[in-house]
């Protein structure tokens, strides 16, 4: 095992993927209502273009992209817009959202669409088509996919890395995509290689998914330079920079993107979605969500319309057990704990983990004993112990000078800490505070200049 490619540092939490890894995806019944937030991607929120009372069909646009780093939102069901209002968002805030009452008499069959042949399209046209379809990274961060397909001037994509690591415990979304839609994954990769002109591609898959490796290998094309690279099982292998290190042996410099070393990282499910867009013409309106954990009665891999409320999703999986304690969107390492059953599934929701009492250990937080375990765990070689002590004293600037901004909040440090210090959460908060204090200082400086001038 140890001869397999991987990155330095990192952790190996219990995988718990056995709950759903062998379950074939099934479509969940259409709910009575979906709520589509305008903010489902990194970048500027979309702008709503429908109004109350409008009839929309599956795949119709409800909000258009606002600029290049933005993505449109499409109706995931046929129904009537019941209102446009503020709605709880999985990130803990509220966001404007389009509520659609699902039409009970509709068969929910999308209308026929004309699909342009991708072979006849220029790269810029492919990028535009991908944006128009609202495709975003399905691995969790929801960065608009088309932005990555149009690398900045002066850079060249040498290798496309298709990310099939799925290193978060519990989740099996990408796993099922690779097993069940291997053809689509390869087809999407083919479109991306043509769009970016990349001569080579590597599909990185962790060794704990032998059936996925087998399925992809079976459909590998002869005419393209594509290979499957089995990787050691380690967290956070699926982080962009870690994957680049594992596969190419290159380190992405601090503050830079993988493109600076000629790499482009895309999630396997995003690739499959691109293939689907050019196959059916349907935009990104549904995704596979793993609903799992010991707190849910019937764990499943479901095809879920985007905007389905958490409440309906849990009901489709038999509901929660009596000892369910915590619901997390995404995996348990980086996922967002939810405090409201009315939040909708968004494009970036990889899974819903319902943790039972047994899985949620609530232990007392002790002082740091400086054991250094977090230093050995940190995949970007920071000193979480020192950063944690700064965070407790609100020393945000000192944290910045110790490279807080390289932290991707993977949670490896919190996971290994024997004192149960919530390091990763403290760093996330510190990043927010750093942003806020800088904005306040800038406002004060602007104010001072204004008074001097007047």
């Amino acid at each position: 095992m140890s001869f397999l490619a991987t990155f330095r540092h990192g952790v190996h939490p219990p995988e718990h993927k056995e709950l759903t890894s062998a379950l074939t995806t099934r479509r969940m019944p259409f709910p009575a209502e979906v709520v589509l937030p305008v903010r489902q991607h990194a970048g500027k929120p979309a702008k709503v273009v429908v109004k109350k009372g409008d009839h929309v069909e599956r795949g119709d646009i409800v909000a258009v992209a606002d600029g290049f780093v933005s993505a449109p939102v499409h109706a995931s069901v046929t129904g009537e817009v019941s209102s446009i209002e503020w709605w709880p968002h999985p990130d803990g805030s509220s966001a404007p959202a389009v509520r659609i009452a699902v039409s009970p008499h509709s068969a929910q069959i999308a209308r026929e669409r004309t699909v342009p042949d991708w072979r006849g399209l220029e790269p810029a046209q492919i990028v535009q088509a991908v944006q128009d379809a609202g495709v975003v990274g399905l691995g969790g961060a929801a960065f608009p996919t088309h932005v990555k397909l149009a690398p900045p001037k002066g850079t060249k994509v040498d290798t496309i890395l298709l990310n099939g690591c799925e290193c978060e415990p519990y989740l099996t979304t990408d796993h099922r995509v690779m097993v069940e839609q291997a053809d689509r994954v390869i087809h999407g990769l083919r479109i991306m290689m043509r769009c970016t002109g990349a001569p080579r591609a590597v599909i990185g898959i962790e060794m704990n998914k032998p059936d996925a490796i087998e399925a992809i290998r079976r459909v590998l094309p002869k005419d393209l330079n594509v290979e499957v690279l089995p990787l050691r099982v380690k967290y956070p292998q699926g982080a962009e920079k870690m994957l680049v290190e594992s596969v190419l042996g290159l380190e992405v410099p601090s503050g830079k993107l993988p493109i600076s070393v000629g790499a482009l990282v895309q999630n396997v499910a995003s690739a499959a979605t691109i293939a689907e867009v050019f196959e059916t013409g349907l935009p990104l309106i549904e995704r596979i969500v793993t609903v799992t954990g010991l707190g849910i009665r019937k764990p499943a891999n479901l095809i879920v319309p985007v905007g389905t409320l958490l409440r309906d999703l849990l009901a489709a999986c038999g509901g929660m057990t009596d000892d369910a304690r915590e619901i997390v969107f995404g995996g348990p390492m980086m996922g967002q704990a939810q405090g409201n059953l009315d939040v909708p599934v968004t494009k970036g929701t990889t899974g819903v983990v319902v943790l039972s009492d047994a899985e949620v250990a609530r232990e007392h937080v002790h002082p740091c004993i400086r054991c250094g375990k977090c230093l050995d765990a940190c995949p970007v070689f920071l000193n979480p112990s020192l950063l944690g002590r700064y965070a407790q004293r609100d020393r945000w600037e000192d944290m910045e000078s110790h490279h807080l901004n390289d932290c991707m909040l993977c949670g490896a440090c919190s996971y290994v800490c024997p004192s149960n210090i919530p390091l990763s959460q403290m760093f996330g908060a510190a990043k927010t505070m750093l942003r806020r204090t800088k904005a306040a200082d800038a406002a004060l400086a602007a104010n001072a200049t204004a008074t001097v001038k007047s």
Partner: protein
Amino acid sequence: MDESAILSSALILGGTGLTFAILIAVAHRKLRVWEDPRIDQIVAMLPGANCGACGSAGCRNFAERLLKADAKPVGCTVMNPDGVKSVASFLGVDAGTAVKRVARLLCAGGSDVATKKAEYHGHRTCVAAASVSTGGKGCSWGCIGLADCARACSFGAITMGPTGLPVVDPAKCTACNDCVVVCPKDLFQILPVTRRLLVQCKSALEGDSAQAVCKVACTACGKCVQDAKPGLISIANGLAVVDPAQSALEEPAATGRCPTGAIVWCEWAQFAPKAAAKSAVRETVNT
């Protein structure tokens, strides 16, 4: 042998010392930067809190601005009136006039009136809890109540009240802006104490959906708009907004028919016992 060693080392050390002493003496003359001695004297009179409430980068910067007549002594909100007077008389200038400004909390959703949907067990700061469903609170605009502001306040002006809301003591508040910066929900606003009409809510929700998560939310019903003098209050983004330019028109009458008590007449401190009594009366009428 011994004596010459003592003598030579004494000469070397003494000579080195003398050379450097001369160098320092020359440098002190030639490279001297003249600084107004009054700056140090004024800094000694200022409180030394370096809070930034005056808009300067610390007390020394404020002293420099005072000397340039770029600021008035009253600009320091931390000094008591006697201190302001002594600085003014030292400089021989007018102390200036300023309306006292205090931090106002634009949320009244304490644990007694706001709904809670989940329990929060993470890192106990507001900014950390803000990303986890507002610490389980039903309203995603409301106060989280984990006291980031009270910890940030250098003057001990903020204490946490019985319902988990921070209570600002106007007498101690210097309007330094620290609480404004740290609140992840942007609930603090620095306002002149003459601004008596406060809308203690930031929820963008309207009507029943606003009241469903908090009993004292502004429902944007518009009754206060009708009751106030024309042009004073308007409704924007699900909230009643008092026009700061028209604050002379403010009257307590605007709060009379507010169905939730979101708009209040604040004489001095927020969440005064009187306001609590009023809301108790309203509750008994409703039920």
